[in-house]
């Protein structure tokens, strides 16, 4: 069967009947457009999570020891939540015994964070996230300084009243001033700014540059946590294999320190960036499902429209079908002709939809904090879907064409 002829014929039909074709293809175009846009945005969020967000929040080959997970997959029941709250806290006294048992090259840090009122001579008080940290915190978190410096070993050791702040904090509290050496008050106590980090950008519109970090032994520790307690201990291994090994060591040591019997579950959480990703993947699956189901209605409407148009085309071109049959077209030739025509029509609709969908996704990415990334698989899927919709919609009209009696068809005016 002349496949290319049928494709050419279908394209010629579209060109000749622009307005009719526009309405014919509208359903498929809109369906595919939203499919591409939604998938692009979900995919963009996914890439963002994997490449930026996780790196920023967790760091590479890093795991955290916490009392309870701070990123949770699925629903947590009230009972579970309460049992987490009853767990013993992670203590600063846990850090040293763990760190000494881990393979050489393993970095550690610990952090305790809370909302703290921050104020300077140039700005009114406002609650900000303030962390009291120790260890290789800046290295593990990949926080580079734009101005000034990180804490010295001595400052960490002595608990000096110094802070490193995010660029947004610097801008708000020291407008048009050099923040280095200035005084910043945390919960009423004075600290000296020694460094401003580089911008960490934002996630979904939330700035990552609004934070204050002080040494653990500074007075801040008494504000953010009860005495001796830390929120999380962070370990970074040189390789992912060593990370797995280190996690088992930490697990064993912590169970020992908490006197857990073998059958009892862990009363602490070991959280990895993979775990956080799994959490996001679950959200992503739901978003993709929603993003696929809604445009599917558009495609169903599109299929019905195409079926109608093809029935009209078969009726209008009965004589042509008769001529072709008289000249030797078999049933499957007539069938193929109209199937290819329907598929071509809806593939063109899908192609337009893909273009518009990409434009829509880019537009949304530009106008809102949502990132967008066009997934190659979604283009392939949309194209196949377009052709598939056309074939499904074309089956009934095409089979009617193929069953026409050539004599009756030739007699048609």
């Amino acid at each position, binding site marked *: 069967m*002349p496949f290319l*002829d049928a494709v050419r*014929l279908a394209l*010629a039909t579209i060109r000749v009947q622009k307005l009719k074709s526009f309405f014919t293809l509208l359903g498929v175009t809109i369906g595919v457009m939203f499919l591409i846009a939604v998938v692009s945005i979900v995919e963009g969020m996914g890439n963002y999570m994997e490449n930026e967000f996780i790196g920023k929040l967790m760091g590479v080959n890093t795991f955290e020891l916490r009392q309870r997970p701070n990123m949770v997959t699925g629903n947590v029941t009230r009972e579970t939540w309460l049992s987490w709250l009853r767990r013993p806290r992670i203590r600063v006294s846990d850090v040293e015994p763990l760190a000494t048992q881990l393979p050489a090259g393993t970095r550690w840090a610990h952090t305790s964070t809370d909302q703290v009122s921050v104020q300077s001579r140039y700005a009114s008080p406002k609650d900000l996230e303030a962390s009291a940290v120790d260890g290789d915190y800046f290295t593990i978190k990949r926080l580079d300084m734009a101005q000034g410096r990180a804490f010295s070993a001595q400052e960490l050791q002595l608990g000096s009243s110094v802070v490193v702040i995010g660029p947004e904090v610097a801008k708000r509290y020291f407008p048009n001033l050099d923040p280095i050496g200035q005084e910043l008050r945390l919960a009423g106590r004075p600290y000296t700014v020694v460094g401003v980090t580089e911008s960490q950008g934002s996630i979904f519109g939330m700035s990552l540059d609004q934070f204050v970090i002080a040494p653990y032994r500074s007075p801040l520790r008494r504000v953010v946590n009860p005495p001796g307690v830390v929120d999380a201990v962070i370990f970074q291994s040189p390789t992912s294999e060593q990370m797995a090994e280190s996690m088992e060591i930490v697990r064993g040591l912590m169970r020992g320190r908490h006197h857990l019997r073998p059958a009892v579950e862990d009363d602490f959480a070991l959280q990895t960036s993979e775990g956080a990703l799994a959490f996001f993947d679950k959200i992503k699956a739901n978003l993709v499902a929603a993003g696929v189901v809604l445009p599917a209605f558009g495609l169903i409407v599109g299929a019905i429209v195409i079926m109608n148009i093809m029935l009209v085309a078969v009726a209008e071109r009965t*004589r*042509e079908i*008769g*001529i*072709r*049959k*008289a*000249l*030797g*077209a*078999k*049933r*499957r*030739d007539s069938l193929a002709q109209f199937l290819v025509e329907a598929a071509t029509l809806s593939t063109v609709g899908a192609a337009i939809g893909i273009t518009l969908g990409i434009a829509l996704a880019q537009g949304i990415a530009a106008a809102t904090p949502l990132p967008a990334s066009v997934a190659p698989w979604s283009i392939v899927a949309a194209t196949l879907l377009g052709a598939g919709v056309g074939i499904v919609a074309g089956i009934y009209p095409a089979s009617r064409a193929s069953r026409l009696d*050539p*004599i009756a068809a*030739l007699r048609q005016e």
Partner: protein
Amino acid sequence: MSVTPDVLRDSEPGLATTAERQAVVDRAGQTPGREWVIVTRNLQRHYDMGGEIVRALRGANIAIRRNEYVAIMGPSGSGKSTLMNVIGCLDTPNEGEYWLNGQLVSKMKDDELARVRNKEIGFVFQTFNLLPRATALHNVELPLVYAGVSSEERKRRATEALERVQLGERLHHRPNELSGGQRQRVAIARALVNNPSILLADEPTGNLDSKTSEEIMKVFEELAQQGQTVIMVTHEPDIAQHARRVVVLRDGVISNDGPPSRVIPEYVQGH
């Protein structure tokens, strides 16, 4: 070399009686040999028109040799169109046998009939039946498309066929850019492009003025002289005059068969 069968020489009276026609068909043998391009035996075709049975063919016997130029005549309602559809493999008889080029067509299924139409029959219609949106070249290519001929070969053969009917200059014109006579010549080129056993023309001059009709008849004449079997259905004596043999159909059976010089006057008289 004589291309006309002995029983059908213009000088002879032809097959005037039913018995004579039966004899020829019988002589074609149980399985007709190569010289017989068409043999029908006791062809019957009836339609159910809302409970009423219309008997369009009631036992037609025809034998046509290769290279004959035959006109089939008959008043309307004589079964002429039905016979043409059966001979053209667009329809199958309810009873009887139809042999085309050594193949028993009367028992074939749809797709086999499509293949036979493609290979053995070149149609020329009263209304030309060209695809309006396709160029002359593409129209002529169509039978080759369904024969599975490659695109290059298709172009070459379609161009040749159009040159044969003096339309080599009009390859890329659409039907609405051509005159009636030119359209019918495109249709003839399309009919010939796949080298069919028979050229089957249904009132080929019905939509043409008399001058153009003569032009088309000249083309048929040349084709017949080149050895192409031509079967032409017509109700116009002037057109039937061009054939070497005229078969008259009346009430679904053959009522006369012979050279135009004898049959046409008898037909006109009986009308």
